[in-house]
């Protein structure tokens, strides 16, 4: 699934929704980008921690699971727009029958997967629908 250093490098980003914001153009980025997409080298990126609230842009119910998600199908996958602007892809858990385009969601801390019985366990952020 993933290598140890590759996962470790992103722990803060996955656990705590740590991203960046460009001071020049004001756009927020999650995950943090190396270069602002608008300003490129002229941009100035500073750290920003997202609130974890947002809404569903689109979603699907995956029946044929991805590698590492065997045994979890069917699961809901969605593109979520965080309130600050950037979008991310995440599993949505809880009442997946009630998910619609526009449903409000909030972040929770969950297991993302593991490298088999003997390998590393990956933790991170997923989302649950909130009642309006």
């Amino acid at each position, binding site marked *: 699934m993933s290598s140890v250093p590759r996962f470790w490098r992103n722990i803060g980003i996955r656990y*705590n929704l740590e991203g960046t914001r460009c001071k020049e153009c004001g756009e927020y980025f999650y995950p943090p980008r190396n270069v602002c997409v608008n300003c490129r080298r002229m941009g100035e990126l500073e750290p920003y921690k997202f609130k974890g609230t947002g809404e569903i842009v689109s979603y699907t119910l995956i029946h044929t699971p991805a590698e590492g998600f065997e045994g979890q199908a069917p699961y809901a996958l969605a593109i979520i727009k965080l309130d600050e602007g950037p979008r991310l892809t995440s599993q949505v858990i809880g009442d997946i029958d009630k998910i619609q385009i526009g449903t409000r969601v909030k972040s929770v*801390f969950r297991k993302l997967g593991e490298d088999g019985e003997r390998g590393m*366990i990956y933790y991170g952020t997923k989302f649950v629908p909130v009642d309006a």
Partner: protein
Amino acid sequence: MTIGIVSYGAYVPRYRIKIEEIARLWGDDAEALKNGLMVYEKSVPDIDEDAATIAVEAARNAMARSGVDPSRIGAVYTGSESHPYAVKPTSTIVAQAIGATPEMTAADFEFACKAGTAAVQACMGLVGSGMIDLGLAIGADVSQGAPGDALEYTAAAGGVACLIGRNESELAAIIEDTYSFTTDTPDFWRREGMPYPEHGGRFTGEPGYFKHVTNGAKGLLEKLGTKPSDYDYAVFHQPNGKFPRKAAKMLGFTKDQIAPGLVVPKIGNTYSGSCLMGIAATLDQAKPGDRIFATAFGSGAGSDAFSITVTDRIEEIRNRAPTVSELIKDPVYIDYARYARHKGKIRLA
């Protein structure tokens, strides 16, 4: 030096399985079990939850409730008997997830169901001695009961985090004192690599639970010179609904005193989170000035007793995070097949 609880936070997974559903599988008498255990259903972790994720959610609730800067935390100790790793601490995962790293110490605790309160005591020591400013103690479990074994009816999932400090203006509850009673008693254990625990059946009752709870409680009452009637509430470790009621009666506490903290009938035994869950549920509705007497029990065996007085600050912070009632109010019931999948009782390829 005044030490106490700056904040607390709980977390219980949404899924439940009813006693009837487990009994259906094994051909047991559900009514007899419910009457005997005084447990009606138990909480089940989601397929992507474990003791670490539960500890994080409880810790985050405690932090939200307190509003305290996480960099002030000098220690994070997580007690569990279902730590996700045998070697690699749960506490560092929690510490990272609440922003307490890196200037702090951390370690994991194990003492069956009293690992959480043992962590509280350790934080009390570090805070009380001035070594750290704030300490976070957590008890969290996704305990396993062997399929078909009596413990399968009560082994549940949940966790509670307590933020311990000494700054009087920040304390929501003062811990006047603590007392422990510990012996080497093999009433319940799990060997390395084994998926399910062993227990001594009826041996876990008198020589285990009751001996240590009563001695622990009496020891603290004597030390403080207090009586059961001096307290508004009492919480005892709740492996089922029967034991804490009997312990209360043996010691002279009333049914009303233990009522708010008695959550086991609805969620089962959350092991390292059990006594702390009772304390959290009690704090959720206690008034300033109320006194709480709590005694945790861990197999192996030992008890930790605490005498707690609630302060004014409880009203300020209580509703900044979900209460235990709010956390357990919308359960989703599942069948045994799904329960087995969630608990990893089905060995996938």
